[in-house]
């Protein structure tokens, strides 16, 4: 059971990291799109 908790924690942290990375990437692309549109 404790092993399962470790895997659960690792999965949650990993997904949190991936999500944070994707959201930041999305926001940076959005900023570039705005920059282009305002030209």
């Amino acid at each position, binding site marked *: 059971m404790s092993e399962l908790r470790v895997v659960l924690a690792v999965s949650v942290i990993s997904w949190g990291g991936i*999500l944070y990375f994707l*959201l*930041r990437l*999305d926001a940076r692309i959005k900023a570039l*799109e705005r920059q282009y549109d305002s030209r």
Partner: protein
Amino acid sequence: MGGGKLSWKYTLGFWFFLSIAGAFVYAPPAMGLGDLARIIFFHVPLAWVGVLAYLVAMVNGVRYLKTARPEYDHKAAFNAEIGLVFTLLATVTGAIFARHTWGMYWNWDPRQVSIFVLLLIYGAYFALRSSVENPQRRARLSAVYISLAFITVPFLVFIIPRLYPTLHPDPILNAERRINMEGRMLQVFLAFLAGFTGLYAWIAQLESRVLRLRARFKR
């Protein structure tokens, strides 16, 4: 980071957190395999996204052959990239499962051979792309290759592994075309399938937007 368009991405993020909790708390351990069976929630959707990305790559390859528009070549390439990454992850999760059930990470089981061949076929696509310098020629050759490569996918993923004796557990949709999965496991499994499909859509959308930006800034 705000904005209405991002809301489905936050929803997807939350969906995955819920699915992960479902996989380890809500779904019961499987009979015979115990907690190890939970790897199926990740392994099968990863393989599914791989196949989906290869299909989209093939569609874009065909579109390039019809229109000769470079954006279709780029779309085919990044979908093949996504497909390769997800297939690789499916291979790794499969090997982890194999280690704990068959005792070895890799033992050239028909399932493992077929996924290995699939990785080689799509890996060769990138070798082909990097070996041709002329962009039009590269795009044309790549489009032909990626379109033909997809013909092998149903054989390598669905047909060949079913023709030979294998240690791999029954596929989700088994030979009798029935799904033998406990109710709660099935719910979590479907949640992951939808989640991973959404994740693929997001990654593909990001790649598309980068492509559009590159084209705009080049002008």
